[in-house]
């Protein structure tokens, strides 16, 4: 019967361009950034992107705030590493490239098991229960050294001869491309999920569970299914992590990791599908690069998170989308000048504040190294009151300028939004 009706379906050029660009980016990234550090970072980013996207399936699309999602990636990592050891010993015949699927299956099974309990509730109670389940598994991991390897964790070797078509997974670049292909496919699948009836019902359950129940859907079951699918992709991320690091420690199921998924998914932006991709990149940059640069990175992270929740609840992706909207209506150009002012004033205040923070941390942690520390290449004496006064002056002057500019920006912003609304109404009427 469907053949009788002609459906006009033009190629969605924009979609092809976006997905093609995404694939190309994954493909050429290690060629542009070819140092071994950047290859390591890129591999971790690929894993973090899958993890954050899977997490956002709950947070953004289902409105479920999980505090224990590292459980599924972590257990996936452990099962994968055990499977890898079996493959290495010759008792299991599976190509190494398919092992992340073992992790995915593990994530799915445990998400089905634990999710059955946790998804009985929604909202804040759901958050509390996931935290409890997370703690349960984290404590279990230290109790069962036979499976979790105790403090040292379980290690393995991903190079299992013979190499298939020259791919041994020895060099990092080969692992990167394994991760990149999983990342691309998983992103595609997770995007496709948002277009399925289940994905749509999940949005409905997030927005108005009462009404969904009234129509005759079981909201608990919708949440449970979404939880399982999220667990599947979390498990794949965990399995890739196990292959990448050749190690799984109790840390991968821990509360810290769960918190990181939440934090960075939100920072990236939970309301847009591509937000968690930004979040995954930020996650690796912060946990690997920022933590090398400064001891106070968790403080910066906590502050950035709180500021984001208070002032930009849609995350980085939300900021991008809002400005794209401005640009589409030709309102962005006059704003740019003010953004420049915000960046300069905020930069000055941030420079002063971070100088004070670094001096404080130096006093607390590196007292033995003497009172002089390096800050942005300059030697700074933390015992010298002049340094503190200078930093404080920067914070105050920068903060004052920032506030003045911010007020102007808010006025401009609201005027621009009002203009856009009017324009939209005019178009609708026309």
């Amino acid at each position: 019967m469907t053949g009788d009706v002609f459906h006009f379906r033009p190629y969605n050029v924009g979609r092809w361009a976006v997905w093609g660009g995404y694939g190309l980016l994954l493909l050429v990234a290690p060629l542009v950034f070819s140092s071994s550090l950047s290859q390591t970072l890129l591999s971790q980013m690929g894993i973090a992107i899958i993890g954050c996207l899977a997490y956002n399936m709950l947070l953004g699309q289902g409105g479920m705030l999980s505090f224990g999602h590292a459980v599924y990636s972590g257990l996936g990592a452990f099962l994968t590493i055990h499977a890898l050891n079996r493959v290495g010993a010759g008792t299991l015949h599976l190509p190494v490239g398919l092992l992340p699927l073992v992790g995915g299956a593990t994530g799915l099974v445990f998400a089905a098991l634990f999710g059955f309990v946790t998804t009985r509730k929604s909202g804040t109670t759901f958050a509390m229960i996931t935290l409890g389940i997370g703690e349960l598994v984290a404590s279990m991991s230290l109790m069962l050294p036979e499976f979790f390897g105790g403090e040292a964790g379980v290690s393995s070797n991903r190079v299992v001869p013979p190499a298939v078509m020259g791919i041994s997974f020895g060099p990092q670049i080969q692992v990167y491309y394994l991760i990149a292909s999983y990342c691309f496919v998983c992103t595609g699948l997770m995007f496709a999920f948002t277009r399925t009836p289940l994905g749509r019902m999940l949005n409905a359950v997030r927005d108005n569970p009462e009404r969904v129940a009234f129509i005759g859907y079981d909201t608990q079951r919708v949440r449970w299914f979404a939880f399982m699918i999220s667990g599947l992709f979390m498990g794949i991320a965990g399995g890739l992590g196990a292959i990448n690091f050749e190690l799984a420690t109790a840390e991968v199921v821990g509360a810290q990791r769960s918190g990181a998924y939440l934090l960075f998914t939100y920072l990236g932006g939970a309301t847009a599908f591509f937000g968690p991709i930004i979040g995954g990149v930020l996650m690796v940059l912060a946990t690997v690069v920022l933590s090398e640069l400064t001891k106070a990175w968790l403080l910066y992270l906590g502050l950035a998170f709180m500021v984001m929740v208070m002032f930009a609840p849609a995350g980085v992706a939300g900021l991008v989308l809002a400005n794209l909207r401005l640009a589409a209506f030709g309102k962005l150009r006059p704003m740019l000048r003010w953004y420049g002012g915000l960046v300069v004033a905020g930069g000055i205040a941030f420079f002063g504040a971070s100088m004070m923070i670094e001096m404080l941390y130096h006093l607390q942690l590196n007292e033995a190294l003497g009172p002089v520390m390096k800050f942005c290449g300059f030697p700074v004496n933390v015992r010298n009151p002049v340094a503190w006064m200078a930093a404080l002056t920067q914070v105050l002057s920068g903060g004052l300028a920032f506030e003045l500019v911010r007020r102007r920006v808010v006025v401009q912003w609201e005027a621009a939004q009002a203009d856009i609304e009017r324009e939209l109404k005019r178009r609708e009427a026309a």
Partner: protein
Amino acid sequence: MDQTVINILNGLSSGLLLFMLSSGLTLIFSMMGVLNFAHAGFYMLGAYVGYASSRIVGFWPALAVAPVVVGALGAVFERLCLRRVHRYGHVPELLVTFGLSYLILELVQVVWGRAPVAFDPPAVLAQPAFTLVQSAATGLSVVLGHADAATCAHAACTTFPATRAFMMLVALLMLLALWLLLRHTRVGLVIQAALTHPEMAEALGHNVPRVFMLVFGAGCALAGLAGVIGGTTFVTEPSMAAAIGPILFVVVVVGGTGSLVGAFVGALLIGLLQTVPLTVDKSLVDAASALGWHVSTDSAAYPLMKLTLAQVAPILPYLLLVLILILRPRGLFGTRE
């Protein structure tokens, strides 16, 4: 017998400490719908502020100073941050307190360092509250404070620390004060009204946002008070918040979210569950062999079954949580939703 009594008392005192924390959490939750993720952080802050102020003004004044400071900080946080995200809904509110928990942890580490600090109880509390003397000749008897060495020479003496007795006393006094405040004062009436009918309370001229701020501050102050007592009884260190935080949520879910009675019963239950099994050095393997079923060391379930009850004690609260959710999803004293 004497050991069992002490164990149960230890469990009850831990439970009462948990109640001091979860009562604030529940109060804030039932009133504002905000799950304060940083509640354990305020507890830790209480311990550290108590430590710092006890070195200046002594322990007893610090017992009052720390709650006031922590409560004020909580109220400021509510006014500046929480109120701003209130319009976005409950999830951002939870997230902002989640960010705060990171911040508190880092600040505590910057100010007081990463190692535990020596926050000792005053001399009065440093000794045992009473000693249980178990002797073959006279049976079980109770001696206040220390039992003399002559008695203990030919009898088993078990002591109960005064800090724990003090903990129980303060928690019970707090429970009484809270009940009196909520039931028999004007402020309590306004709070109860704002809890169930915020719009109506506002229409009658009460400043509901300010009531919220005060309740949040009071909840944090209770956490601060618990922090001073917990800090002297246990160890004052940066990991103390992460250790107690998840347990608090278990208490709240098990008791039934939003119910003070539930928080009380749940806290006692979890306190006992955390403490009493610690002394039972038996495992499922022992249980099986008592039933005449021998588990060999190479069977697949052996690693799981050989764990003693003392070893699995840390996860028992979480198992209880799962069990409650399956059998009674609204918690012991929760109302139907």
